């Protein structure tokens, strides 16, 4: 078991013929993901290593039964690509692209609420259910199949660091999701926590947050009210100066809102095991999971 992506995922890649697109398509396929189609307008009828290419998502979906789409297009085309996937009825949309304007996402966020599609990202590494399906740009090899940990994070390499530590202490992962570093994103911490809570393979969750917004605070409230499985939390940006965007468009402390300190307090109040030292995260998880197992 895993959440959102698994052996049943039939993956389509929007922007498959771009440099990034073709590279990561091959990486995903080599990991074992079932890549059934690609879309590049004007290249319909061609193929990439035998993966058929279509002009539109709608025709690709009709022809191949794709149910997930990975978007690797330049930021100026990302909003259009996401909406095209939504309208074509793609169930799981993963937008890797960084630099999508906020107002584009503002509209998409509400449009998504009208439709059954689930969006991960943008500005995210994607999702991996180790051993089953990788949709994104994360290095597959650092992951360990078989659970028990779910990982959800706003970051990329920081997530790899966390996953690596988990694998080192012998904790495999059910699914790892980078929800993205932008101010407005598709699925949230809460959506993932909810799915992990319901997933039998997942026995504990690592939540990796960072400064900006209050998604972590909202997640904490949800955890307090609904979560039976242990959650280990980490927040990046304790030392970030206010008013500056720390790489991620969403990582900014403004008007005193969105500080790491406030997030840590919220998580602690929800009885999340907070780890402040990144180097110790793997050990903390091992300890918490050992206690839970008892």
């Amino acid at each position, binding site marked *: 078991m895993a959440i959102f992506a698994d052996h049943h995922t039939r993956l389509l890649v929007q922007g498959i013929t771009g440099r990034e697109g073709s590279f990561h398509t091959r990486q995903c396929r080599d990991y074992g993901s079932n890549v059934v189609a690609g879309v590049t307008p004007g290249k319909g009828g061609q193929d990439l290593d035998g993966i058929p290419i279509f002009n539109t998502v709608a025709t690709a979906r009709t022809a191949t039964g794709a149910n997930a789409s990975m978007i690797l297009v330049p930021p100026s085309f990302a909003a259009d690509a996401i909406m095209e996937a939504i309208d074509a009825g793609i169930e799981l949309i993963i937008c890797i692209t960084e630099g999508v304007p906020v107002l584009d*996402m*503002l509209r998409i966020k509400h449009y998504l609420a009208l439709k059954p599609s689930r969006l991960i990202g943008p500005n995210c590494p994607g999702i991996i259910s180790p051993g089953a399906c990788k949709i994104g*740009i994360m290095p597959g090899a650092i992951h360990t199949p078989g659970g028990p940990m779910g990982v959800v994070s706003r970051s990329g390499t*920081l997530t790899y660091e966390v996953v690596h530590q988990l694998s080192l202490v012998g904790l495999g992962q059910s699914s790892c999701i980078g929800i993205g570093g932008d101010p*407005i994103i598709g699925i949230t911490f809460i959506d993932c926590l909810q799915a992990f809570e319901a997933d039998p393979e997942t026995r504990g969750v690592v939540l990796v947050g960072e400064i900006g917004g209050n998604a972590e605070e909202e997640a904490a409230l949800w955890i307090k009210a609904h979560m039976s499985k242990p959650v280990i939390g980490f927040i990046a940006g304790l030392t970030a100066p206010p008013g500056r965007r720390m790489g991620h468009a969403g*990582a900014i402390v403004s*008007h005193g809102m969105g500080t790491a300190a406030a997030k840590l307090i919220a998580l602690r109040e929800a009885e999340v095991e907070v780890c*402040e030292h*990144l180097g110790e995260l793997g050990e903390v998880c091992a300890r918490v999971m050992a206690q839970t197992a008892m």
Partner: protein
Amino acid sequence: MHLHEYQAKALFREVGIPVPDGQVIDEPRQLLPLIDELGLPLVIKAQVLAGGRGKGGGVRLVRTASEAQAAATEILGMELVTAQTGDQGKTVRKVMVEQGIDITRELYLSLLIDRDRAEIVIIGSQDGGMAIEEVAARSPERIIRVQVNPLIGLQGYHLRQLAFGLELSPQLSRELASLLQKLYPFFMTYDCSQLEINPLVVTSTGQLLAVDAKVEIDSNSLYRHPELAALAEPDDQDPLEAEARAIGLNYIRLDGTIGTIVNGAGLAMATMDLIKQAGAEPANFLDVGGGASAEMIEKGFRLLLSDQRVRAIFINIFGGILRCDALARGVVQAARSTGLTLPVIVRMEGTNVDEGRRILAESGLTLTIVSTLTDAVRELTNLKDLQ
């Protein structure tokens, strides 16, 4: 990207949002013809990207030509220190010269993005001229918030909620409606992330006038607003940050002594936190990109070495799809080609890490190579008293 007041007002004027008559100058001698044109009194305002200019002495009301001349001469070139500039202040290179306005009332108006609800929020207050945070703390009931869903846009009831909330007369309500029917499209058209008019002034003739204007544009949107991208003034940025941007690095200058080179924004933030936890202070945030190449690492190296305050460098790289051996070669090459003399701690993890560490160890460079973050913190602790 923040716009200067004079830039924002020029855009306002284009779309018919009322602003005082005025012009921007960068030399005192340009003032005299303006006095003829605009009359007296005038307001002279320093154009720097920082709030609190008035308190810092960057805004002056002048009633005579000689007062105007004196004020312009004094402000142009001054290092303006405000609550937001830091102690070193910001050099004033331009001043805005505007007609003095006969003010009967000061309102506050801003448009922001509400991240949680993914909506535009319009904030109004009768207490114009004060920082909105102050009003929020003192009399929160005097702040009117109106949420606008971006899919349906600004509607009549939003305007009524605002106008009745601000207790405006019917005439002023119409004025405000007309203003917002220009301001909301402005916000959307120009991909603003923040827009503040404080004060929004009611003149003695009952007109609304945007006497100040703070506008921030979403940098990610600049590809569709080349005319705005062109407004960026190099002087507004820290020179190192400007240089970093030019070479495609995501760099923020901080006050410490430990330079950092990290791949990925989240890991870079967490690395700053580690340095602090070791008792040292980071000199910067530097994300060379999640898929960091050897070339980007070398660029980062050179940038940090040009910062005189940097006493040591901490490289924290998680090798993902780009493997550690390639990254290690980049580090070695960067260290060699820059003739590095500062202490360097390298923590490298991820794909092909053994080969990477071997390359570092055999490079002949005096690098401190650590494998875990805990080891890194220990080494950083040893460095913390470096000056």
